[in-house]
């Protein structure tokens, strides 16, 4: 019992320590879920509090840290210029901008761009990561703390289609996946100095998934879960040492989601895993459902339910206990970004720039409003302080009551 409480406390610390912030891809717990109350009356379109112009390209999610909205952008004919921008969350006014020169390869498929990975923050620092495998660490005022060029260090660490994995920061360690067909690795960088704490050789295969964090329910320790074509590897973020390893393959595009002691992995459909009591090196398969096939969008979890969008743009609501589908709802269009949830509503944006506000019922989902942003949107939105933030190449919008 005591161990279980420790585990729950660790999860709470992970969430509570982030307050009203949204500090990484799919939020502080990387589950796409927020307790914030956001505008859900989209009957006349989403209420826009402000919009800001962005110059360049980017599909990285905005993150929100201490009242600042942080956005990354890449610009230039070959996107060799890397930007980090800070906007005042309240007013939308740009507070500062810093630019850097990419040290890694900028080649990528025209649909994506160099500013694809979502930045992360530990509340004191901002870690901006790019497809070029450049890592920029700034304080919240935009002062440079350190800079790494991981392709500069390892020239064959790149993907000609572009990289997109977003880092997480756990236990003062920035975990960065640089997984590709050639020099493939995942590394843990000291968040304070940028020095390498550990580096793992990884499967030589292109991988666009992002790591997720899971708390051990027994001792409260945090583990980082790294997904790849080979499966899912759980590691200690401080050392990179393996905790457990699931080796039955997994997707290289949509990322997993953790809910409590279970991680839901896009593997052979969806496979639910949890740490095993009998063999700590191999996780227990809670259930597998081959009929659940997520497209590009990552999974989202809230209130005992799992949400996924397939290639046809159909949203499924699934029981976390057993993989049974509660309901399906056809959205419209193709989705690169992932859904996020606030309270009883889910928000997601299709590639044509149409935003959906979906009411999540017990037996059905209902589209209660949409908004046409009329620009390509490939990002996953952020939720903080009663607002939703979403970006295109050209704009950052705040959806909130003005």
């Amino acid at each position: 019992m005591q161990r279980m409480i420790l585990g729950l406390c660790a999860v709470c610390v992970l969430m509570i320590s982030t307050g009203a912030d949204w500090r990484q891809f799919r939020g502080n717990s990387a589950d796409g879920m927020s307790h914030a109350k956001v505008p859900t009356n989209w009957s006349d379109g989403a209420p826009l509090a402000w919009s800001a112009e962005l110059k360049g390209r980017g599909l990285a999610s905005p993150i929100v840290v201490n009242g600042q909205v942080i956005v990354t952008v890449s610009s230039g004919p070959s996107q060799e210029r890397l930007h980090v921008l800070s906007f005042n969350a309240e007013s939308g006014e740009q507070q500062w901008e810093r630019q850097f020169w990419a040290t890694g390869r900028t080649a990528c498929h025209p649909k994506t761009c160099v500013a694809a990975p979502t930045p992360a923050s530990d509340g004191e620092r901002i870690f901006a990561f790019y497809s070029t495998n450049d890592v920029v660490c700034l304080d919240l005022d935009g002062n440079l703390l350190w800079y790494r060029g991981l392709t500069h260090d390892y020239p064959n660490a790149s993907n000609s289609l572009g990289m997109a994995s977003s880092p997480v920061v756990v236990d003062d360690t920035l975990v960065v996946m640089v997984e590709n067909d050639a020099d493939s690795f995942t590394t843990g960088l000291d968040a304070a100095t940028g020095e390498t704490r550990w580096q793992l050789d990884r499967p030589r295969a292109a991988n666009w998934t992002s790591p997720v964090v899971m708390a051990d329910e027994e001792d409260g320790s945090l583990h980082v879960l790294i997904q790849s074509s080979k499966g899912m590897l759980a590691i200690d973020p401080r050392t990179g040492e393996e905790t457990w390893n699931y080796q039955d393959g997994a997707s290289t595009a949509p990322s997993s989601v953790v809910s409590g002691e279970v991680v839901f992995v896009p593997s052979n459909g969806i496979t639910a895993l949890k740490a095993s009591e009998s063999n700590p090196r191999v996780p227990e398969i809670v259930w597998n459902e081959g009929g659940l096939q997520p497209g590009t969008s990552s999974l989202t979890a809230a209130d005992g339910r799992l949400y996924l969008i397939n290639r046809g743009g159909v949203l499924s609501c699934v029981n976390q206990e057993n993989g049974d589908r509660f309901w399906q709802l056809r959205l419209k269009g193709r989705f690169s970004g992932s859904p996020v949830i606030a309270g009883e509503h889910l928000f997601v944006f299709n590639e044509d720039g149409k935003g959906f506000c979906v009411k999540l019922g017990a037996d059905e989902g209902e589209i209660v409003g949409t908004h046409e942003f009329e620009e390509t949107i490939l990002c996953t939105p952020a939720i903080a302080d009663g607002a939703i933030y979403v970006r295109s190449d050209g704009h950052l919008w705040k959806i909130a009551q003005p």
Partner: protein
Amino acid sequence: MRALTAIVLSCLVFVPIVQAVEIDSLLEQVKAVGPKGSGHVEAQQAVGELSQADRDALLPILTASNDANRLAMNWLRGAFETIADETLKSGGELPQQELEAFVLDTENTPRVRRLAYEWLAKVDATAPDRIIPTMLDDPSSELRRDAVARLIDAAQEAEETGEKLVAHANWKKALEGAVDEDQVKTIVKGLKEHGEEVDLVQHFGMLMDWKLIGPFDNKEMQGFDVAYPPESELDFEVKYEGQLGEVEWKSYTSEKTDGEFDIGELDANHKGSATYATTTFDSDHEQTVEFRISTQNAWKLWLNGELLFAREEYHRGMFFDQYRVQGTLKPGENVLLLKILQNEQDEDWAQDYKFKFRVTDLSGRAIRPANDRQAVR
């Protein structure tokens, strides 16, 4: 209260100390940062202090950036932008004359000049009109790109007003400075309206004449690290045992107008194979160049027998200037050897067996061989 006073005083004292005594030392500490996190602790301390300096540190930072490594340049840029940003926010002025002089001095590193230019342009609205039109042949690809963009705008404006001669002249002039693929395509389209065709192979400096030998075995992608005979000798009279029997060198010239050299079309597209391609490139002096390669296939590149780069990635797209590899041409004849490998994927999108190859200066301008018997048409 005393504590507050002490803090204020220490801040007041600190800044001039940073400026007067330590700037050079701090710059050297930052420049010592190296790959894989080396020198981070010292550089971190130094960049923190440097970022608190006032505007007098801006030019020393730019100057120091000239010969900094690519990582250190970014560390220095971070400090530069923090100081410049804080200077403007606090109502101060940037050293405009010094910045402009730095921009105009082509001995300075191109990207650092561009940094100086962008901050100058923030505070001097007349700077772009004064500086950019002179940059059509500048070593900085970014400054040159802006000059080309102005000419493209002028050409398009003239087209709209029916000034055909002016438009044509601007298109022609723009092409002289254009190296970026998007700008060149726009210009080519513009010139076509005037009945003028642009030889893109010539403009980009694509190498179109190669000798090929193959196939050698690359089943299950095992041939990448196998050193077949052409890696140790280039004897065009000798035949070797290949994947499907005896193989010998054959000469090919690609006629593709986009510069592609298609092994599958010119020779054969054997699944799970390796082919070697070689050509020569004459240089009239020693020079550092970039070899710009586009391919969906795995490859290795040697210059005069020295392996420059190896890339084992298959079918992840083919993009203009996909790979940029630096090398130093010696005076006289230089021998290029390319090993290019096909895997056994059977998807429709995984069948290409081709490459584009060109030689450029570090800003992307085509470098042509020193004599016309070489591979550029």
